[in-house]
C-alpha cells in the first residue's frame, strides 16, 4: 500500500474515478474537481469482474486521455466492488446512487434503482443516503424479470418499452416466480394473447412489485428512476401508474452509481487534503490481480 501525501493545492487539476460493477454491466466514470465528466464507459460484466473492470477502466482512461496514475482517488461500488484491486475504497451502491442522483437532481428525495439482480429505493436528504429498502427475496422484483421474459418472447430487451406502448388490453401476469413467469408467458402466447399486451402485463407485474417495495419508504418527490429499466419507456409508464407520481429519469440512468462513486471519491479526497490527512491509495496497476491479495 502506498501512502501519498495529498497536499495538492485546491483547484489544481485532479481526477477521480468511480467504478460501478453491477451484475450485468460495469460502468466507469472519470471526473475532474468540478465534477465534469471526462469519460463514461459501460461494458458488460462477466463472471470475471476484475479483468473487465481493468478493461473498462483502460477504455475510460483512453477516452479521457489520462493515465491511471493521474487518478487521485478511485472508489468502487456495486456487486463486484470488492474485486477491484486498484480501487482505493469501496462504498455500497446505495450511497453512490443516492449521491449520483442528487448531483443530477438536487431536489430528489427518493431514488429508485431497478438493477439486474436487485431493486432498491433510497431516501435522500441533503444529498446523503438516509434510508433505503432493497429486494433480495427473489428475482421477481428485479430487472432480471424482464431480461428472462424478453428472452422467452424472443425480443430484444430494449424493444420491450416501445412494443408495450401498443398494448390495448390489460393482462395479469400472476406468477410470483420469474422462472415460472416464463411458463406463464408461454401459456399466454399459445392462448393467442398479443405480444404488446403480454409485455405491458410484465411491466405492470414488475412495477407493482417494485412499487410495493418503494412504499416502505414514504415516497417523497422528486422521485428519480435509474438503472437499466429506466431506459424502458413502458416500465417508466408502469412505474408512474403504480406509484401514482411523476418520475424523473437521467439521460444515462445506468451511470448514476459510477457518477456517485466518482463524486464521493472527490469529496473524500478533497476533505482529506483540506484536513491535511494522508490518504491511502492502492497501487495504480491495471493488470490482473488475484482476489485474495
Amino acid at each position: 500500500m502506498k501512502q501519498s501525501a495529498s497536499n495538492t493545492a485546491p483547484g489544481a487539476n485532479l481526477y477521480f474515478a468511480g467504478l460501478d460493477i453491477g451484475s450485468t454491466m460495469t460502468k466507469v466514470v472519470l471526473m475532474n474537481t468540478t465534477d465534469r465528466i471526462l469519460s463514461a464507459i459501460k461494458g458488460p460484466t462477466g463472471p470475471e469482474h476484475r479483468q473487465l473492470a481493468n478493461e473498462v477502466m483502460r477504455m475510460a482512461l483512453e477516452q479521457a486521455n489520462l493515465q491511471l496514475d493521474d487518478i487521485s482517488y478511485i472508489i468502487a461500488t456495486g456487486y463486484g466492488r470488492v474485486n477491484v484491486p486498484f480501487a482505493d475504497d469501496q462504498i455500497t451502491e446505495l450511497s453512490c446512487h443516492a449521491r449520483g442522483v442528487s448531483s443530477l437532481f438536487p431536489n430528489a428525495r427518493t431514488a429508485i434503482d431497478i438493477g439486474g439482480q436487485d431493486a432498491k429505493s433510497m431516501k435522500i436528504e441533503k444529498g446523503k443516503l438516509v434510508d433505503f429498502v432493497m429486494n433480495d427475496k427473489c428475482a421477481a422484483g428485479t430487472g432480471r424479470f424482464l431480461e428472462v421474459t424478453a428472452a422467452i418472447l424472443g425480443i430484444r430487451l430494449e424493444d420491450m418499452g416501445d412494443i408495450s406502448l401498443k398494448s390495448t388490453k390489460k393482462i395479469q401476469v400472476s406468477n410470483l416466480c420469474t422462472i415460472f413467469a416464463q411458463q406463464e408467458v408461454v401459456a399466454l402466447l399459445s392462448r393467442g394473447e398479443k405480444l404488446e399486451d403480454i409485455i405491458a402485463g410484465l411491466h405492470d407485474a414488475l412495477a407493482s412489485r417494485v412499487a410495493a417495495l418503494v412504499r416502505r419508504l414514504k415516497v417523497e418527490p422528486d422521485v428519480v428512476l435509474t438503472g437499466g429499466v429506466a431506459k424502458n419507456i413502458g416500465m417508466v409508464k408502469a412505474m408512474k401508474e403504480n406509484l401514482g407520481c411523476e418520475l424523473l429519469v437521467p439521460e444515462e440512468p445506468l451511470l448514476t452509481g459510477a457518477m456517485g462513486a466518482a463524486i464521493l471519491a472527490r469529496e473524500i479526497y478533497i476533505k482529506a487534503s483540506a484536513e491535511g490527512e494522508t490518504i491511502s491509495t492502492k497501487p495504480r496497476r491495471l493488470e490482473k490481480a488475484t482476489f485474495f491479495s
Partner: protein
Amino acid sequence: MSDKGLSKVQEIYLNRSQRAKELKAAGKKIIGYPCVYVPLEMLTALDLVPYRTYGDIKEPVTETDRALPTSFCSIMRSCLDCALKGKDDFLDGMVTIHSCDPQEKTARVWESYADYPYFHFIDMPSTVRPEAIEYFKSQLNDFRKTLEAFTGQKLTADKLKSAIKAHNQQRALVQQLYELTKPVPPLISGTELVQVVKALMSLPVAEGNDLLTQVIDEVKSRTDGPKKKPARLLIWSSTLDDTGIMQLFEAKANVVMDETCGGIRAYRSSVKLTADPLDSLADYYMKEITCARTFRQAALGETRKDYAKDLQSRFGYLEGIIKEWKTNGAILLLVRYCDPFAFEMPSLKDYLDSIGIPSTYIEYDYTIGALAPLKTRVEAFIETIS
C-alpha cells in the same frame, strides 16, 4: 485446555457438548432446553446440568421437513433438525416451554420423535396479569413434581434459593461483562459475547461463573480488543447464536449491545427472592425477560390506549441502554417466520424513531447462504449513520 478465559470460551463454543458429555460420563444428568424461558434454577437446584439445545446455522436442514413445514421459524426448524440427527442423544431429558408457537409445536414433535428418559412441557401464559402469573407458578410447581419424580429428590425451598443465588450471580457477571462494551472502542466484541453466552448455556452455572470471572479479568486488562469502527450498534433479534452473523455486522461497526437470547436478554435483570422462591421465578420469567412473546401494555386492563405510553411500556428500557452504551444505530434482525418479533418490529421502529435512533430491518432464514446478500444492506446502513 488453555487457562485464558476467552480461548477457553472459544474451545467450548466450537465444541459445546464436550463438557456436558464429560459430566454425563461422571454421572451427572444433562437436561436440554431450547428457550431461555425455562427456569434453569430448578434444574440446578437438583444438581441437573442445563444444556441449551441450539440450532446450527451451518447445518443444512434435512430431517425437519418430515415433521414441520418450511414456513416455520427457521431457528426451531434447525434446532429440531439437530435433534432428529441425533446430536442431542446424550441428553437425559428435555424441558420445553410454550414461550411461542414454534417452541410449542416443536416440543410436541420433539417429544414424539426423540426418546429421552425425561421430557416435560411447561405451559406459559401470554400476559403479565396476576392470575396469569399465578397460573405460571402452578405450571412451575407441576414442573417441580416431575423433576422430583425423575431425580427421586425433593426440590426444597432452600435448594432452590441457593440455585437462584448462583444464577443471579451469573446474571450479575454477564452484566459486568457488558459494562466492558461501554468504552470506545469496546473492550470486547459482539462476536466474542455471542461465544461467551453460548458457552455459558453449555455449562453448569458454577463453571459458567468461574469462566465469566476469568473472561472479565482478561478483557479488563486486554490490549488486543476490538478496533474502533465508524458505528456503535444495538442488535435486536429473537436470537443470535452464531458468530458468522455477528461478524457480518462487526466488519464495519462495533456491536456494543444486543437484545437477543443469544446475548444479554436472559441476564439483563435478576430474580428478586421472595418467601416462596416459585413466586420469585414466576414473577421474573413472566415480567423481566423482554422477549416479544409476552403481551405488555401500559396498564393492566387499561380502558384507554395511548400509543406513546404503549411503546414506552414495551421498549422504554432501551432508551437508557442506548444512551449509556452510546449506540448510534440499531439493526432489527428478523428471523424469517418469527411472528412475535415480526409483529413487534414496526412498533419498535416507531419507538426508535421517537428517540432519534436510526434503525434498519434485515431478514434472514438462518442459513449461511442467506448471510452474504445481507452484506450490502448492513454496510449501507452503517454508511447512513457514520
